[in-house]
């Protein structure tokens, strides 16, 4: 009974009380192994890449990556040489539930901004037409390019503090730095510049350094409510048999 003397009907518990799990926040240092592996099969393409990330909470991490790329290409009518550095910064989002991830697993997506500083050169190019073969070369040019990147991926604890994982990189060029006629065909950190969209894949070995443990509030899954046999009345003056107080009759 409340202060006005009305009866309070007992309500079934709407939610299960929340619970918490312990979640370790870590700083990660990852090294990409796909670049050196590709280099073993293609000596004209070397990319060395790594990253650092720090958990802000169980869902978000700050990301800072970077690397170096040296790319050479030649075919019957030209050759191309480029090398340069790139950095990427952004946020990684873990889409797994904390009680599933437990700080050991990560499945999510990173959103990064990339900046590439590089130089390229065309040591020789040739073109054949009616008048014969014309040859030329283009001197070294230094450029800046920038792009954005979405990188969904997965990581799992391998042993101890070591995690392995991979991510797909889907990149959208913002500015390639090249002109209409002479432009780079490969941009370190971005890849082939023929399109405003590029894709790649990275495999990482990651070292984790736990720096803090937090308790994360989780909601337990609610059990399914049994179907009610009768439809409850919405009349607030409906009498119940649970109380022994005075019953109020409706106003005439």
């Amino acid at each position, binding site marked *: 009974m409340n202060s006005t003397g009305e009866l309070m009907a007992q309500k079934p518990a709407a939610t299960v009380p929340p619970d918490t799990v312990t979640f370790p926040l870590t700083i990660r240092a990852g090294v990409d192994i796909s670049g050196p592996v590709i280099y073993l099969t293609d000596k004209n393409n070397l990319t060395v890449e790594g990253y650092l990330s720090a958990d802000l909470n169980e869902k978000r991490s700050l990301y800072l990556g970077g690397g170096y790329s040296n790319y050479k290409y030649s075919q019957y009518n030209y050759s191309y040489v480029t090398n340069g550095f790139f950095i990427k910064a952004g946020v990684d989002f873990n889409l797994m539930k904390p009680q599933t991830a437990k700080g050991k697993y990560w499945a999510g997506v990173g959103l990064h901004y990339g900046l590439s500083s590089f130089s390229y050169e065309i040591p020789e190019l040739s073109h054949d037409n009616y*008048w014969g073969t014309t040859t030329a070369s283009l001197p070294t040019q230094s450029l800046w390019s920038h792009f954005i990147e979405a990188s969904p991926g997965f990581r799992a604890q391998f042993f101890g503090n070591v995690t392995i994982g991979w991510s797909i990189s889907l990149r959208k060029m913002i500015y390639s730095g090249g002109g209409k006629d002479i432009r780079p065909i490969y941009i370190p950190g971005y890849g082939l510049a*023929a399109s405003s969209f590029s894709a790649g894949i990275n495999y990482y070995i990651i070292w984790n350094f736990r720096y803090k443990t937090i308790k994360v509030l989780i909601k337990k899954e609610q059990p399914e409510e049994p179907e009610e046999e009768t439809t409850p009345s919405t009349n607030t003056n409906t009498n119940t048999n649970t109380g022994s107080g005075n019953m109020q009759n409706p106003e005439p």
Partner: protein
Amino acid sequence: MRSIRNVIIALILTGFLLLAYSCTTGACFDETTAYMKASLFLNSTGKQTAPDSLSLWGAGMDTSKIYNAQKSLKQALVPLDASSGSCSFIIKINEVYDTLSAWYSTYPHLLSKDCGYTFYHNIDSLNSTNHKIVKISITKNSVTTISEENIRIYY
């Protein structure tokens, strides 16, 4: 957990597809020569008209003709010499000879990774004899691989 497993499988498959795509070597199917496109107009009507016969070759290259007594040709594709700032052509329209000269600048242009580079031109001026040709004019001085008329030859 089942939904996570499905997402992981989907991402792995996507990764392999992207890897396979990235390893595919391309080929060049594009036009790689920037021709000067010369449209032929009958001066008396002012309409684009093919002459009964047209022959064309570079000056000093009599043995290598670009067109040899070609019929029904309304637009000639004329290759410019990228290693020089000018070149001349002998043009024979309906058995009458003329000489056509062009002055231009040349610059390299990247077509694509697979096609490599070609040379584009900017036409500075044209000149011709007037045995059969009445007049010539430049309609677009940028000579590229795009199919756009560059000059008009009135005969």
